[in-house]
């Protein structure tokens, strides 16, 4: 019924295969598969220690939430995000994506920076109010400070901006710290180069997201010559997901409350060549 998913390995080929990356309709899993998944989930500590607390933070978009084994961004786990292409250096799209996730959750957030180029009014524009965020300029100690934050209860999430190689050992340590405390850990990978191979090396993060900007449609589709900017669009790529499959969606960027929107006209049929 549907062609098997093809995940582009190079950003250059992404535009070409965009059309084939449409979301297949979810299939209800057979009972045997469900049982197996249950067992794997138990092995992987996918169940919350405290059943009264939510396990994950849904995006509110069915297509994305169904692709994630916990029905959303899992709390108490490490997630990696990065921007694609020339934005890898500033990671603006990835930062907005993270700010949008945090905007949909309450509680204080620790944001570990290497250098201070973050602009708080921009975060507030994605719904993350500045009174919730404690910034820590950690220089070279980004990962130790992140772990410190994860081992401390009371935070809703810890965000770290990290440039450089992330070893499996280090990411495993962060993942375990997040698992123990139940704090959401989000890592924004930055790199001065476009296609840094270090960003593709395996880590212990349970999901890995790659966000690329897409050309947005005119602000007024019926009058394309009217000047103005509509809502930005992203290609949201789930390049790795423990217990799930890599997927890709075209979405509308975060609004003022941090919510994404699925792009309707591309989700259902292939897009014409731009």
């Amino acid at each position, binding site marked *: 019924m549907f062609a098997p998913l093809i995940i582009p390995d190079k950003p250059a080929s992404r535009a070409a295969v965009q059309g084939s990356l449409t979301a297949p309709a979810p299939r209800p899993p057979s009972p045997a598969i469900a049982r197996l998944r249950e067992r794997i989930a138990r092995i992987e500590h996918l169940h919350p220690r405290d059943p009264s607390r939510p396990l994950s933070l849904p995006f509110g978009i069915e297509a994305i939430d169904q692709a994630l084994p916990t029905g959303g961004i899992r709390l108490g786990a490490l997630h990696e995000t990065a921007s694609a*292409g*020339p*934005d890898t250096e*500033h*990671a*603006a799209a990835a*930062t*907005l994506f993270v*700010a949008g996730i945090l905007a949909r959750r309450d*509680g*204080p957030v*620790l944001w570990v920076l290497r250098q201070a*180029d*973050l*602009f*708080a*009014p*921009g*975060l*507030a*524009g*994605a719904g993350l*109010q*500045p*009174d919730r*965020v*404690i*910034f*820590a*300029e*950690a*220089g070279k*100690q980004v990962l130790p*400070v992140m772990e*410190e*934050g994860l081992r*401390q*209860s*009371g*935070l809703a999430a810890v965000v770290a901006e990290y440039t450089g190689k992330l070893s499996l050992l280090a990411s495993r340590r962060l993942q375990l710290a997040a698992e123990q405390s139940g704090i959401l850990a989000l890592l924004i990978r930055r790199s001065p180069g476009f296609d840094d191979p270090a960003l593709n090396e395996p880590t212990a993060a349970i999901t890995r997201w790659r966000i*690329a*900007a*897409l*050309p*947005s449609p*005119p*602000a007024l589709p019926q009058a394309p010559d009217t*000047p*103005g*900017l*509509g809502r*930005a*669009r992203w290609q949201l790529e789930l390049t790795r997901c423990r217990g799930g499959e890599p997927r890709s969606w075209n979405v509308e960027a975060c609004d*003022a409350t941090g919510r994404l929107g699925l792009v309707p006209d591309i989700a259902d049929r292939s897009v014409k060549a731009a």
Partner: protein
Amino acid sequence: MRRVVSVWFPTLPTDRLRQPENANTAASPPLVIVAARLLTAVDAAAAALGLRPGMNLAQAQALVPGLAVQGANPPADAAALARLAEMGLHYAPLAAPDPPDGLWIDVTGSTHLHGGETRLLRDLLRRLRAQGWAAHAAVADTPAVAHAMARFGGGGVVLPDAGVMAGLPIEALRLPPETLADLRLMGFERVGPLAAAALAPLVRRFGPLLARRLDQAAGTLFEPITPIVPPALIQARLAFMEPLLTAEAFSAVIVQLVDSVRGDLERAERGARRLDLLFERVDRSVQAIRVGTARPVRDAHHLGRMLDERLERVDPGLGVEAMHLIVAAADPLAFVQTASSLVAEPSPDIAKLVDRLTNRLGEAQIYRIAPVQSDVPERSLRRVPALSPVAPNVTAAWPADWPRPVRLIDPPQPIEAMALLPDQPPVAFTWRRVRHLVRHADGPERIAGEWWKRDREWLSVRDYFRVEDEAGRRFWLFRRGDGSDTDTGDMRWFLHGVF
């Protein structure tokens, strides 16, 4: 034999205004202190110009043009005196303020520690003068004699039973001014004749105070002084049979010390703000580590961990034979109920995390962002300490209708841009040698300079545009100048942020 030091601060109110903590008040000499239009104190420069306490302010200002005048503040003077009394505790365990302008220090049995009375007085006066306090001091065997000699006898060491009081003026007896005036009318100038006169008629006329002062001066009536209680430091010290060398051993000791300090803090209902841990090494030198907390803390685990993290800075040398933990600063910390089904879920406490990050990275590195009422993007925010309360709904200060980039490129990077008309966004721009074609754009958003800050901002203008290139990336560009008048800017284009 009792020995008492009396210290006299002849210009206490003016000296207090010259202390570093009062640096913002106008205290340039000549300075006078005024209450109810009358001079209550004058500094040395004003006294040299002929001003005296009790003078009318108008008269003083007529005599000395450009006189600095400050209002009297007796509570602040009393507080300064209390602090000076704490300093007196350095010399002896008993010290007390002697209002309005003096100190008592009962140095009985402690002068040998400072090399005798003469050296003690010299050291005391040197310290006070170094801190900007004019002072005179005398030591005698009764408070009354010491008090009188400090003020009227030139100070110094008064030997027991020297009989110096007889030659002093009757003002030295600490009597009310009206009594003194009447005694002078009766012909008494010095203490000696007054003490020799028949006491009964004088007491009948002036009251029992006169007799008491004479007895105190003669040393026949004991005059107690009420010492201030030294600020109790909460501390714990542990000495070891064998010198310790390893970090593990230090950690174990820290657990014990912190536990003992925690009990004391609990009884005092206080929480530590600053902890000093001293390592007394076998070679008699002392190593110290100090940790601070953002809020009063009594949690032994938290305090212990903060000290542990600092252990790497300690050089144990040949070994540490004792460790001494001092709560150098503590603030009240009452017990609070943290869990109950009746109260709401407590807001999570992040003070511990802030403490640990602050001790790790430094105070300036942990902060929150608060908005500032300014339209210039770089000035629209400021850093505030992480635990300071930020008013909710703070985004009111940031324009909600005009989206701001999530990364600010500071300073703005110059770009080559091409725009068709001054009011229009560029059609293309080159940033870092990469050419971007603008597909969509929004703007201009004109931000004018804040002319009230600097004259040069009077005319300066920036026109901001949000643009999207052919790949969908969004940038925040601005042109310096309004596009027509070169006085407002040089029309160059800059990239100020990415969305």
